[in-house]
């Protein structure tokens, strides 16, 4: 069913990318506040009441006078505003991938947090390396799984068997975006663990 697989593709894509909802809502709320403020100032000016911050007339005067202000102030404020704009444009155009991986399966759209992959890898690496589970640190990113093993003092860790165990696990998960493994065995061991 191609219809079903395209549906699953859509779900997987949406679940592995940020919707940018929080940022969009924050921007919309600030825009609403700005519009309401401008509207209020206009009404106050029309009713000949004192303004809250600046009447439309004084705001226009302020803009006309901009070249007369100290150059450093004008450039500084301009740079801050431009940086704020950049801080919105960049996340809006960036893909915004979430810390998740997609498992290949026909039956459903399966999405797994990187954290879950990391803890499963940690357990198997600890078993293969014959160390305490607390002595293994794993971090999983979009492309790479970094496994850091701290040996127990006096017991050398068989790096090759750790590599084999981790790679076998990663292969078994059949992730859509396969990840490389990188095993780091610490130089010095930890006593008693």
């Amino acid at each position, binding site marked *: 069913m191609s219809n*079903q697989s395209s*549906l*699953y593709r859509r*779900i*997987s894509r949406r*679940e592995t990318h940020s*919707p*940018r*909802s929080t940022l*969009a*809502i924050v*921007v*919309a*709320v600030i*825009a*609403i506040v700005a*519009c309401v403020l*401008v*509207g209020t100032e*206009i*009404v106050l000016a029309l009713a000949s009441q004192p303004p809250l911050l600046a009447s439309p007339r004084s705001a*226009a*005067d302020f*803009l006309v006078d*901009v*070249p007369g202000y100290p*150059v450093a102030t004008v*450039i500084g404020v*301009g*740079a*801050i*505003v*431009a*940086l*704020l*704009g*950049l801080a*919105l*444009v960049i996340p*809006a*155009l960036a893909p915004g991938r979430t810390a998740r991986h997609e*498992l290949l*399966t026909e*039956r*459903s*759209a*399966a*999405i797994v*947090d990187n*954290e*879950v992959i990391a*803890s*499963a890898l*940690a*357990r198997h690496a600890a078993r293969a390396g014959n160390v305490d*589970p607390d002595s293994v640190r794993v971090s999983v990113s979009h492309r790479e799984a970094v496994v850091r093993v701290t040996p127990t003092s006096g017991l050398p860790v068989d790096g090759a068997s750790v590599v084999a165990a981790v790679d076998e*696990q990663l292969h*078994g*998960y*059949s992730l859509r975006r396969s990840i490389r493994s990188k095993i780091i065995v610490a130089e010095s061991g930890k006593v008693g663990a």
Partner: protein
Amino acid sequence: MNNTNRALNRVVIVLVGVLLLGVGGAAIAVGSIPTVSSTWKDLAPGVRANLSSFFASAPLAGTTIDWWWIAVLAALAVIVILLLAFIFRQGHGHTGRFVDDAATSEGSTIVDSKVAEQLVQDALDGHPELVSSHVSTYRVRRTPVLKVSATARRGVSPRDIVDTVETALDSLETLLGHPVLASVQVSGGFRARLSSTTRLQ
């Protein structure tokens, strides 16, 4: 799974961002480039005078209030309403019907989402490799899709969890006699961190 309009989210953010970039860039240009600064000095008073006379060109009969101010206020109100609609448009997409087939001569079949959700939930509750699970139903492209969110116990292979959930989904499909589309989400998170490590090997 929800039907948030993500393209619209990004468009709104980009529009405001480009606006700020433009204002900031203009201020930097006025401050740093002498020709821009002198052009601004030459043109701005004229523009301001033109705007003032424009906002006095269509006075409301018997008052000093101009129609154009009313138009600006109305435009602001429309923008605020659109932005509010935009905010409340986020999320959504749940559905209460899991099967709602077209009626045949024998009658029609309707299965509520609750039935499917509780059946899958019951099937998953006893499994030791899951700390917890939650099932909900969303409409994706007009098709009801089950969303199974499972919190994995620490150290459990994600493949095992997906297989477990898919077995439950297959059983539901057999039971209902209707295709069951589903999304499985396996997460770690706070509860998984507090729970004990798996003993399965």
